[in-house]
């Protein structure tokens, strides 16, 4: 007990000693939970479902086959590439619009409701529109991804820009900062934690956007791979794709957390605002 309490107070030495233990026990509980889910799945499918329904043992068996299939890698690369492009576009536009929305009352009045409205619209409804504009092409998928991702970034960045402590802006004004430098050096870094929260949401939504576009516009990619395999009763193969998508979600979360620690050492949830 006392050791654990001491570790909270003194970050440098004791925390690093306590960390591997905590991380290790987290991993163990995670593995136990995962094992239970897989076991239940396997048992239920074996007892009640027809043979073509995928079960964990089947999925493990087909992994080598899927891994050597160039179509699988091609599809994965397509989807990930589109998601990356879409996220970058969403980040650039979302950040700029978010900053303006957060710091300018006029912009806020003009755009707030539209942004919230579009954020709430299920992304699938724009598919007929973008396929009309771009045809059944990668561009339609890209547009869907941007549409899916950009609003969560706008909303979070604008909240962050609005929440910049007045003290910071006062200091900037007192030292005669120009408006532009105030945005770049004060508002943007102060809004970074919000920005990261937006990015997490946006990444998930971008992935959904990509798969939805691939499902309904038949543009290839991982979504199409999953759909095609399901329809041809290759359920185990389809599930490899599903698991990969889940893996991206986890991987992105890990990446964001790691880069927060690495690049924003000052940002700690417990003692913000001083």
């Amino acid at each position: 007990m006392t050791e654990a309490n001491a570790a909270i107070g003194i970050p440098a030495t004791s925390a690093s000693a306590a960390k591997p233990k905590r991380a290790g026990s987290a991993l163990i509980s995670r593995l136990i939970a995962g094992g239970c889910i897989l076991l239940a799945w396997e048992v239920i499918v074996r007892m009640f479902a027809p043979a073509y329904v995928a079960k964990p043992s089947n999925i493990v068996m087909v992994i080598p086959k899927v891994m050597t299939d160039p179509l699988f890698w091609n599809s994965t690369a397509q989807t990930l590439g589109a998601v990356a492009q879409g996220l970058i576009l969403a980040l650039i536009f979302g950040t700029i619009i978010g900053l303006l929305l957060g710091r300018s009352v006029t912009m806020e009045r003009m755009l707030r409701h539209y942004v919230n409205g579009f954020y709430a619209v299920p992304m699938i409804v724009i598919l007929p529109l973008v396929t009309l504009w771009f045809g059944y092409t990668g561009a339609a998928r890209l547009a869907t991804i941007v549409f899916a991702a950009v609003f969560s970034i706008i909303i979070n960045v604008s909240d962050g820009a609005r929440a910049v402590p007045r003290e910071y802006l006062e200091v900037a004004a007192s030292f005669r900062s120009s408006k532009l430098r105030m945005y770049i050096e004060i508002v943007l870094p102060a809004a970074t934690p919000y920005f990261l929260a937006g990015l997490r949401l946006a990444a998930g939504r971008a992935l959904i956007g990509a798969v939805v576009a691939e499902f309904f516009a038949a543009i290839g990619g991982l979504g199409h791979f999953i759909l095609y395999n399901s329809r041809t009763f290759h359920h185990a193969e389809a599930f490899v794709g599903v698991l990969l998508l889940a893996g991206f979600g986890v991987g992105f979360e890990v990446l964001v957390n790691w880069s927060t620690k690495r690049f924003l050492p000052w940002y700690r949830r417990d003692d913000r605002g001083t």
Partner: protein
Amino acid sequence: MTKHERPAGGAPVSKDSARIRVNGLGKHYGTLEVFRNVSFDVGEREIVAIVGPSGCGKTTLLRCIDGLLPVDEGEIWFDQQRVTSPLPGVAMVFQHFGLFPWKTVYDNVAYGLRMAGAPQAEIDKRVPEFVKLVGLAGFEKAYPYQISGGMQQRCGLARALAVEPSVLLMDEPFAAVDAQTREILQFELLRIWEQRPTAMIFVTHSIEEAVLLGHRVIVLKGRPSGIYETIKIELPHPRTRATLREPRFAELRERVWGTLMAEAQKAEFELEKP
């Protein structure tokens, strides 16, 4: 240093040693009048302390002098310039420190210089000098959350000093640190001021602090507040810990206390009358 030694050539008639002139200043927020008819001068190498009960508008007055807030009546002059927005040559130290948590001590100290458009070579030369002056050498790479409140305010002081201002505005700078640290910082400030004398306006609610630091103490009070009295503090320089033991110090402290409390006591007796 040399900057402060030149004679004040061309300064307005009769008040040629005044760096800051405040003339008939008035300020209100809507129907609430904060202060009215405030006039005083601050010499080139003079520390003027402003005391007053909380809510009397000391901080608002200081923000007006920095050009952060517009005034409703009267005017403020800094040398020959009328103050309507923050001017170069005037720097402020804030009660809330106003350090940027995403910047290291070094970058926080460099902030004012960067905003003033100083070339990198000058920043590289000056920042270490001022970091050392305030006693933070060795902490250049620390983030604000890693250092104590006293050290954070040392950093805030270095940021203000680094632009080599001829006027320092101190907004209750030591109000947020503990009593011991506060005392240490008061003498640090005196030491630094002896090395680099400037005009200084020091707002505080501590009578002792005002008498220790000020060449003059201005007592603000009333609603709306105004200058109730200006008390000259004839204590020898440099002021040190020994100053605190002088009988004259105790007398002056009592005098300021008496001035500040007279009205409060009067009000109290009035309440007790039937």
